[in-house]
């Protein structure tokens, strides 16, 4: 286990092997001496970037800009991924051509293989069919791929411009109340792309307490790009509510965790780098790396996930789980007992789980509750594995917190629905 919060523990080692070691002040004065003799600065005229740099960090102008940036992010994401690619092209292609074709050429609609790979012989769309090669490919390539592609593009622009540290300054006040500080916005935004690199990125936070809170919140309340993409497709009218519930949970449980988790929460102290024009070469490279990573790692997982879920259906496991947990689902969370199936899928892939939910008969509010549950009840297996790498004690604690939060928050959401008369 890594021991930390001992900033000086390497000092003794530094001393070894050196002829002479300066203390901090001596070293800085030597730096000054060196700088004085080697650096000369002419008069520098402020550029438009410097002005923008100031405007985006001052609250009066910066906060509206932050909202505008996030709104632009969201609407480009929604319109490009949802409307243009998926609805405009992939849905037509998969539902009108690919699915009928698969149903026609795959022999014997009553066989197990047909059920596993093509799914429902009567389905007229790729969400309902739920075969590995129909729904699996459609979800992975038709829905989630365009979504993550556009998401990664916008994220790369945000990363390369130098905006993130400024956003961190603007949200610091809020995040500091949640046991974190503003820079926690970096893992959070990375997490909206994929939770896996986000978990590793929690290392930029100083203390164990901060990292633990951040990891737990990521695992519970930050939906990944794949899940966002599928939500936009399956429940476009309810995505806003789901996100609102997740955001409220992020803030409220962050605040509670900051009170419960022992440890310190040092203040923000960060460098704000100058803006750069994002370079096209770097953007394309990152886009390519992340997208190909998605195709190599995620797509097979989606396909295997469908296969696995179908096998569980055949084996009667999901039916059994639905019955066993029916009281909890129906009475506590207020969702149909069939939600058990998608919840299992959610451990493999969240996008798959949301797609599966769309086949279950339920009200809009039940749908919202079920999607929130899928997001919060457990991280996907890939996230689980990187969390393990960051430390198993933390992981165990996080899982404990997670079950408690999922249970409590799921109940609260149900209660809110009852109070509003929509549950």
């Amino acid at each position, binding site marked *: 286990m890594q021991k930390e919060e001992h900033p000086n523990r390497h000092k003794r080692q530094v001393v070894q092997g050196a002829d002479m070691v300066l203390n901090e002040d001596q070293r800085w004065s030597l730096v000054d001496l060196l700088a004085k003799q080697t650096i000369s600065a002419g008069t520098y005229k402020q550029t438009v970037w410097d002005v923008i740099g100031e405007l985006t960090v001052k609250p009066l102008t910066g906060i509206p800009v932050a909202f505008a940036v996030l709104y632009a992010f969201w609407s480009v994401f929604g319109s490009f991924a949802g409307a243009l690619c998926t609805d405009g092209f992939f849905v037509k292609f998969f539902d009108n051509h690919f699915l009928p074709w698969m149903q026609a050429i795959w022999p014997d609609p009553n066989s197990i293989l047909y059920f596993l790979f093509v799914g429902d012989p009567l389905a007229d769309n790729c969400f309902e069919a739920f075969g590995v090669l129909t729904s699996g490919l459609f979800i992975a390539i038709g829905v989630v791929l365009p979504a993550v592609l556009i998401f990664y593009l916008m994220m790369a622009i945000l990363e390369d411009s130098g905006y993130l540290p400024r956003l961190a300054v*603007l949200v*610091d006040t809020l995040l500091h109340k949640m046991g974190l500080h503003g820079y926690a916005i970096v893992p959070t935004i990375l997490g909206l792309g994929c939770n896996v690199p986000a978990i590793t990125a929690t290392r930029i936070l100083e203390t164990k307490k901060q990292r633990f809170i951040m990891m737990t919140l990521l695992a519970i309340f930050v939906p990944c790009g794949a899940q966002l993409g599928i939500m936009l497709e399956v429940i476009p009218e309810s995505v806003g509510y789901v996100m609102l519930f997740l955001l409220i949970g992020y803030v409220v449980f962050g605040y509670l965790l900051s009170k419960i988790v022992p440890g310190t929460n040092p203040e*923000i*102290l*960060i*460098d704000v780098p100058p803006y750069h024009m994002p370079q096209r070469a770097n953007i394309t490279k990152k886009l390519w790396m992340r997208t190909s990573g998605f195709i190599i790692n995620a797509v097979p997982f989606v396909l295997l996930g469908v296969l696995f879920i179908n096998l569980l259906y055949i084996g009667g496991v999901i039916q059994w789980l639905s019955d066993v947990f029916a009281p909890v689902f129906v009475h506590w969370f207020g969702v149909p007992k069939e939600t058990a199936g998608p919840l299992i899928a959610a451990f493999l892939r969240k996008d798959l789980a949301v797609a599966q939910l769309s086949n279950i008969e339920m009200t809009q509010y039940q749908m919202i509750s079920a999607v929130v549950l899928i997001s919060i009840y457990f991280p996907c297996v890939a996230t689980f594995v990187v969390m393990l790498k960051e430390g198993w004690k933390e992981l165990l604690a996080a899982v404990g917190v997670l079950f408690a939060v999922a249970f409590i928050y799921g109940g609260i959401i149900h209660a809110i629905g009852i109070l509003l008369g929509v549950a």
Partner: protein
Amino acid sequence: MLNSVTQVLNLKMKLSEMEFGAEGVITEINTEKQKINAMGIRVGKKLKMITKQPIKGPVVSTCGELEVAMGVDLASQVVVDVD
């Protein structure tokens, strides 16, 4: 006016209390000196306060080519001779 007085006297002030756009020379860093130094904010350097966020939010200042954001408690430990 108060303004002209400060100009004459070179008022010592906490970074957290400086006006937007005010400049001065850092004279003291009382806590976490090492941490703040490492970011390039040091005694004897010229510093300009850029902005601070509402509700005790962080203070952003520039020090030469560096721009650093620090929490308000840290900023209150940095004393500046404002000119």
